[in-house]
């Protein structure tokens, strides 16, 4: 229920073997009641960020403010944040139920209210039947839900969830995502969750902060991340299967813009489909990286020809791998497509589905024909 402001935060781990700059000049604002996912691969700095907010790691420089109060120098107990740990970290001598109510002990709530909360939380997470068991005698998934419940049952200004559903089976995960999102909304909980699973980030978060190499790459809504990736990393990282990326030369001549891909194939568009500013930019610096999402790569038609390498119907979509000038690209279509491997196929992409990046810096130049 409080706003979190992370301002120019750095984290440097120093040891005898040298230092690691884990988080670099991170700026992030989480609005009251907003759910934000920190998304990135292992070692990208997302967990370090979470632990700095919780107070288990010192901030090397910068500040963290929660609800207008600087918290980065306070001990964890005084920060008013709740956290669910990736390794569960339940107290072994206590039962699941005691573990969850334990977090409420300090809250001075009446016992009946504490019991009611634990019970309804356990029901939501479907662990009501194991409240009397000990952590070591239940499964990893149950421990994880207990750990999540222990965090959510508290009244805190900020909830930190570290890989909260990594151990759950897919069906349960899908059900719980919905319930947890509803719970967080209903209680207006400001939440940061750390995950490497983009489905989870998309399903739970209002905004996603994509991190890589300790640097925040982009901070935007899930839809915006897909439609307007800020750079080549985000473009390739978000989306499954990943974006097809080519290096290409743009050629603006009269009423036509042509992108010549590595290997010689060319994509041509009427100049009107690209904005005038973009045409100007391409005329000045023709070298670009061209990104095409698999679902935007249409089979049939087009001047780009390729050979089908594999074709697989997944039950709801078809993945077709095509060899284009020595590179394999993936096309996804919602219909059932059957193409024999080795057969020749044409590929086309609409101008509105093109993502152009600067090949040197990786920064986005344009999305769908207009400058980024």
């Amino acid at each position, binding site marked *: 229920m409080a706003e979190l402001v992370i301002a120019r935060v750095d984290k440097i781990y120093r040891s005898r073997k040298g230092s690691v700059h884990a988080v670099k000049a991170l700026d992030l604002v989480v609005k009251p009641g907003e759910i934000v996912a920190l998304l990135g691969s292992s070692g990208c700095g997302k967990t370090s960020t979470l632990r700095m907010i919780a107070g288990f790691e010192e901030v090397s420089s910068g500040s963290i403010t929660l609800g207008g109060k600087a918290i980065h120098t306070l001990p964890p107990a005084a920060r008013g944040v709740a956290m669910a740990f*990736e390794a569960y970290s339940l107290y072994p001598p206590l039962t699941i139920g005691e573990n969850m109510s334990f977090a409420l002990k300090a809250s001075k709530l009446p016992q009946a209210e504490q019991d009611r909360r634990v019970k309804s939380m356990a029901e939501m997470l479907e662990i009501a039947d194991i409240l009397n068991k000990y952590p070591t005698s239940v499964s990893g998934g149950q421990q994880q839900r207990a750990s999540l419940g222990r965090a959510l049952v508290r009244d805190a200004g900020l909830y930190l969830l570290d890989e909260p559903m990594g151990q759950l089976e897919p069906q349960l995960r899908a059900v719980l995502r919905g319930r947890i999102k509803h719970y967080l909304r209903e209680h207006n909980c400001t939440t940061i969750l750390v995950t490497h699973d983009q489905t989870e980030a998309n399903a739970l978060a209002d905004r996603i902060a994509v991190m890589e190499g300790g640097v925040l790459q982009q901070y935007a809504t899930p839809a915006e991340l897909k439609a307007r990736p800020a750079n080549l990393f985000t473009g390739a990282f978000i989306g499954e299967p990943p974006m097809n990326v080519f290096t290409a030369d743009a050629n603006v001549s009269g009423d036509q813009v042509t992108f010549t891909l590595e290997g010689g194939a060319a994509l041509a568009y009427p100049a009107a489909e690209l904005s005038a500013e973009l045409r100007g930019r391409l005329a000045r610096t023709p070298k670009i990286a061209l990104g095409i999402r698999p679902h935007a790569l249409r089979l049939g038609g087009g001047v780009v020809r390729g050979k089908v390498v594999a074709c697989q119907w997944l039950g709801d979509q078809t993945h077709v791998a095509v060899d284009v000038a020595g590179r394999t690209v993936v096309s996804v279509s919602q219909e059932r497509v059957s193409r024999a491997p080795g057969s020749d196929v044409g590929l086309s992409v609409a101008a509105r589905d093109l993502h152009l990046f600067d090949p040197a810096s990786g920064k986005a130049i344009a999305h769908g024909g207009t400058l980024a």
Partner: protein
Amino acid sequence: MDHTSGLEKILRGAAIALVLVFFLFPIAWIFLMSLQTNETILRIPPSLAFTPIIDNYTALITGQLRTAAGSLQLNFMQNMFNSVMLSVCSVALSLVLGVPAAYAFARFKFRLGEDIAFTLLSFRFAPALLVLLPLSLYFKTLGLTNTYIGLIWVYQLICLPLILWIVRGYFEDISPDIEHAYRIAGNSWWKTFTRISIPLAKPGIAAAGLLAFIFAWNNFIFALILASADKQPVTVGALAFVTASGIQYGQIAAAIIISITPTLALALYAQRYLVEGLSMGAVKG
């Protein structure tokens, strides 16, 4: 275990019996010796047929040793009291100092931390005689010779490294996130240490305390050099049985039986902690 054949079971039984005989025979033999007179102990060939007597024990407890050469004063019970006093106090002091130190070494990286921990361990490498000469000189100057305080202090050389290094391992095995979970729920560092870390490391602390107690109890050389008769423990006190009129085997055996009883009882009692300690995490508290 269901897959073992009959032969395997027999072989395993035989192996266990062999080990038990090897370890328990000396204790059993000493126990039998303690119930005999010197004459029956020393007869050739030895025999198991004898009339048990408890004179050896009564002599130790009353402090009156009658030998062929006359009556002798013994202060075995004083030695026994000294042993208990020295071992209990030094282990207690070691726990008070060692457990927080072990926690610090396990949880925090600080300048020279590893070097300090290693230095403490190195006390166990050095032969006791090496440190005894300078120690006895220091003790004379400081007036600590033949005092309980001095001996308990020196016994820290035995107990502290043991407790520090064993307990440190236990603390390292506890996930710091369990403590973090407790701290973030609004509890102070000290409360987390006493309510979460120590209870979770309890099997390890008990095991380390027990081992330290046994080592302290069995120590011989420190008290031999640094204390005189009235402060010496049983290990040194047993020397009194080497008398002018010969070695009193019966009394030595009885003294050994009495002196191992406390450690044996303690070990049997603490056995379950040791097992728990070794299988930490799998056994519910």
